[in-house]
């Protein structure tokens, strides 16, 4: 994040937050997520954003972001 980053309100994994990130990639980095980490997937407003588009995908106020990974399951 640089000081130029504007703060926007997002809903990240169901929780409202205000972050200084204008793209998905910035948001993920802000969340401490390694962009190279495997097995991650992200959706914005109900649509999956493929990894190749994370850098370019702009965020808008009110966006609902889901960041998931596989876990144990039955």
């Amino acid at each position, binding site marked *: 994040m640089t000081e130029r980053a504007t703060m926007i309100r997002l809903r990240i994994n169901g929780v409202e937050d205000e972050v200084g990130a204008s793209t998905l990639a910035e948001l993920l980095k802000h969340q401490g997520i390694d962009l190279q980490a495997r097995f991650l997937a992200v959706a914005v407003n109900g649509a*999956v954003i493929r990894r190749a588009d994370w850098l370019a995908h702009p965020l808008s106020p009110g966006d609902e972001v889901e960041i998931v990974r596989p876990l*144990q399951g*039955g």
Partner: protein
Amino acid sequence: MTDPLTIAGTTLASRLFVGTAGYPNQQMLLDCLETSGTELVTVSIRRISLEGYAESLVDLLEGRYRLLPNTAGCVTARDAILTAELAREALQTDWVKLELIGDRETLYPDVEQLVHAADQLVRSGFTVLPYCNEDPVACQKLADVGCAAVMPLGSLIGSGGGIANPAAIELVCSRSPVPVVLDAGIGTASDAALAMELGCDAVLVNTAIAKSHDPQRMAAAMRAGVEAGRLARLAGRIPKRRFAEPSSPQLGLVST
């Protein structure tokens, strides 16, 4: 034994699918999977903890097992579909075990929504294996919309209740145009064997292994149970009779 199962063009040598949840620890999970001989294991898709990212279970499973992500816990078609799409992106697989729960307490499937969600996912290129009930009409509809298999419940998820309605499972198996995978309710090895004898093509087990007193041994038991039931099905069992039939010769008895 060469008696592979084919689902959506993929051949699996083992007819035992194993869930990965609830084991005492990760090493035990890995040992159980190894012992079970399974080739297909289920995983869930969950939001990452915002506190940070830990190494995933999947790093350990990848390359050794085909992964079948589920949509466990979803109660709307929308959430289930999004979960499936996230799973596809995360795991680079178009296979999904589609769960659409109609009731949070019993975890019983909502077959009406299930058919619709399955239809949409098939149209989006998914290989859909839906968790459903032992309703032959619903199973037919799921096959009709293009599901690669159907996964009727034996009894409630995690209940260990076995196969509550064997006649219905047998009916589903006898009419299903796609493979039938018995899902939910298996409590012990004879349940798994019975499922296969009724005509199921495979069995999915999780809690019965993970929560056993000795999970790895139960994994071995399930492996043997599935094999036993499959072989018995192929061999063709004797009919049940109400009366006795001597096995030893009836003539030539010693008689004083």
